[in-house]
């Protein structure tokens, strides 16, 4: 909650002890203020665009929303797991947990792409569940103007942004259990 928003809400909430006549005028004012704050909050994401962390996999640019990024780790900490399916590269220790590291290209069902070394692991938190994506190169944080975003449909890609950047839809990404059985 931002400053003015909290103040407005607080005043309204604590009105119980305010004398009646003041109460009436104040209510009007506070409601107006609060409306302004709410309107501003709603408008924000559209105006500011979307903050994403961009990286390359298989020479192509992908991105995830910054708020979903839990940690970025060096790929040297990656260990393989026994008899893992192709989309599961292994596991890595992230802070106090161990998280699986997935192969984005395999998840997306892509055949091509180079085999250059994966250098970083972007650990992502999707509704509390952590998993890592192995990436070749970390491009860094970018802000995408919502004007340039194009919906990509139902799959694991949420949007296409200009400059050949695909923003991933995390909740649809993976669930490889259902795909590979």
């Amino acid at each position, binding site marked *: 909650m931002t400053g003015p928003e909290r103040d407005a809400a607080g005043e309204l909430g604590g009105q*119980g002890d305010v004398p009646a006549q003041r109460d009436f005028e104040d209510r009007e004012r506070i409601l107006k203020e609060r409306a302004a704050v709410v309107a501003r909050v709603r408008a924000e994401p559209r105006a500011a665009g979307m903050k994403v962390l961009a990286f390359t996999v298989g020479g192509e640019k992908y991105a995830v929303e910054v708020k979903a990024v839990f940690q970025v780790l060096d*790929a*040297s*900490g*990656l*260990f*393989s*797991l*026994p*008899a*893992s*399916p*192709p*989309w*599961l*590269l*292994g*596991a*890595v*220790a992230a802070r*106090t*947990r*161990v*998280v*699986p590291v*997935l*192969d984005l290209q*395999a998840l997306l069902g892509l*055949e*091509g*792409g*180079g*085999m*250059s*070394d*994966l250098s970083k692991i972007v650990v992502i938190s999707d509704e509390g*569940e*952590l*998993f890592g994506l*192995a990436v070749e190169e970390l491009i860094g944080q970018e802000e995408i103007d919502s004007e340039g975003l194009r919906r990509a449909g139902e799959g694991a890609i949420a949007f296409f942004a200009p400059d050949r950047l695909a923003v991933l839809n995390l909740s649809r990404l*993976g*669930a*490889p*259990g*259902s*795909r*590979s*059985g």
Partner: protein
Amino acid sequence: MDRETLTQIWPVFSAETREHLSSLSSGILELEDDPTRQKVLDGVRRTAHSMKGSAGSLGLTELEQLAHAIEGSLARFDPEEGLARATVTAALDAVEAIERALEAGDAGGEPEVPRLAEILAALGSGPTPSEVCGAAGPPGSEGPLALVERLELACSELLRPLDEAARRFRAGAAAEEGRALLALCPGSPLPARIAEGFARLAEGGTDGARVAAAVAGDLVDLRTLFERPAALAPAPPPAPVPPPNAERSVRVLSSSLDSLTRELELLSLSESRHRHRAGQVKEVEEAIRESVRSLERVGQALRAAQAEEASSDFSLVLERLKTQAARLSRLSREAARDADGQRLTGALLREDLRALRMVSASVALEPLRRVVREVAGRTGKEVDLSLSGGEVRLDRRVVDEVRDPLLHLVRNAVDHGIELPGVRERAGKPPRGQLGVKVELRGTRVGVTVEDDGAGLDVNAVRAAAVRGGVLGPEVAARMTDSEAAQLVFHPGLSTSASVTEISGRGVGLDVVKDTAERLQGTVSVSYELGRFTRFELEVPVSLSASAALLVKLGREVTAFPSDNVARVLLLREGEVGTLAGQATVRVDGVELPYASLSAVLGQAGSVSRVRGRLRPALLLSMGGKRVVLGVEEVLGRQELVVFSLGARLSGVPHLAGAAVLDDGRVIGVLAAGEIVRRVKPAGDSSARSVPPRPRVLVADDSLTTRSVVKSLLEIAGFAVVAAADGEEAWQLFTTVGAQVVVTDVQMPRLNGFDLTRRIKADPFLRQTPVVLITSLDSPEDRALGLEAGAEGYLVKREVERGQLLELVRQLVPERGAIPGSPA
């Protein structure tokens, strides 16, 4: 409920009720401010209701009555009118009274509610008629009691909106009657206050509601007085409960317990590294001492050779070195002592934390009483529930996980297991069905048994349902033994009852029970006898935090089995593995048990069978009564591990139970013993016959990621892949395991790709094996160097299309035949 169980469950109940109370009082206050908030009202009612339920299930009738009265007073609530002050006061009084009772209970006393009748009356729900009869005073006191009743009626009428004249009349009359009370009990201040209150109500005014509430309270006190004529003097205020000295329990978020556990595990990692380092320091110290001793001998030689000047310089340096060596030895001792100290504290901390995580099983058992009553009532069945083992202490997480499956099993037993009374009588059984839920410790595991004395399982209906659901073909179903077919009830999408009833068909199927069991590294099974009983057995570990695991080598990797599931480690001599009807078996304790090697079970290339003339280690896995022998390459030891679940995205990888961090920081996969056991086919199952060997590719790369990518790429294409981290290791693997194609990186430690290629091409027997070099360098010189070394293919990483590598490898794989490199 017996005293002991109550004592055990009390802290949980007390903490839970306190939470209820705080949300109740804030909800009531919120409603008083704004009566139109339906959501808050619903929340408050719900809270009161669940409080009633939990008090009731513990047999705490007084608390149950209070909660019920609060609920009742809110049920009469009309948002148009808002909450009367009196109702709010009464409800808050009730909340406070419950709090007092909790305090008394926390201190180890009886959770009695002071002034129960009075509070109940204020909430508008007098004691139930039977209680009035029981508490009725002697006949002589009927006069004043009747008067009090009339006044109470007047009071409650005055609490409702009345027009001015009616109110004045009613209150005036009541004031008169109140004064009559004065004569009846002159010693008490109550009648005077009541009379005065009614008089003020008759006058009218803004605080009518408050006055009426006060009068109502006084009236109740008065009634109590008349009902207990012996104590005409006003009862002393209830003695304040002394602040409890007994330990109070606090509620802790289970997520903070989880993170505490994880952090502690990290600490213990660094602790074992400390120990390791202290050991290394000690080694260095000893080496230096040894050197000092040799130097002393050199010094003696120097003196003997009468090299005066050199000798004195030498002894000077030697002295200095000795001083430093002594310092080092002191440091080493201190480091060792610190490491020991840390280990000790860590052990204590772990023990405490483990205890903290433990709750008694009754937390999950007690709620079953209500469920059984409810389901039995709805289905018209008569059921006696007996619970045992409530005192067994389990990991909080285990209890949380087991709670729902247990509810389901119990509902299921009442709904489908136990017959209707009439049916039972016709079958010659007592009309009341018996349902037993038993929790018992079995070493580090805990067994939960749910047994009913109903009709048993209709195993043919299960077979039919499985066939109908496409789970298996009719022939297979017919071939199954009854006890095998019974286990089909755990298959998703199978319902034994022809019509899904409201009670058991709530979306939690027996398959969910099984899923939960397996997630906890446990098992569930069913047994029955027609017409006699059905018994479900759930077995899970006591604790989910760090538990002992057995580390085994699997190819180049290390993996682990929970020790719980490993009954024994065996050493098999050559020839001990025989076959029985086409399935490899090993004789253990006189029984032929199915045998398979771990790498075969996981479909990985392994080198188990390479070692000849030596003892081969194997694990005897035991899971839900099923035993198999699993051959492994090497048992590396035992370690305490915290197993992390890898999340829902890996639900399609059933052989992995999770992952864990080893002492040295390596991350390893932990295998799900249940799945592994399932994959080892019992004797007589022809599907276990080995498939023709897949062509094997040796992949050498020092980068794990590249190695994994290449490996999975080749594995999808149907190759078996052996991976090595450098050229030297690749050479070792190549000469022991063998491969039909070698794919190697150029720049690697120890032995680079060029030299590996040269070595392979220099061997007269191995030279025909094709080698593909993959490099991040693309210079004509390198390419020339590679081809000169004898490589058949040369690919640049950045340019390599996955298809290109596959194509090349496919071209290079020789026709099926002997695997070069492997010893004949």
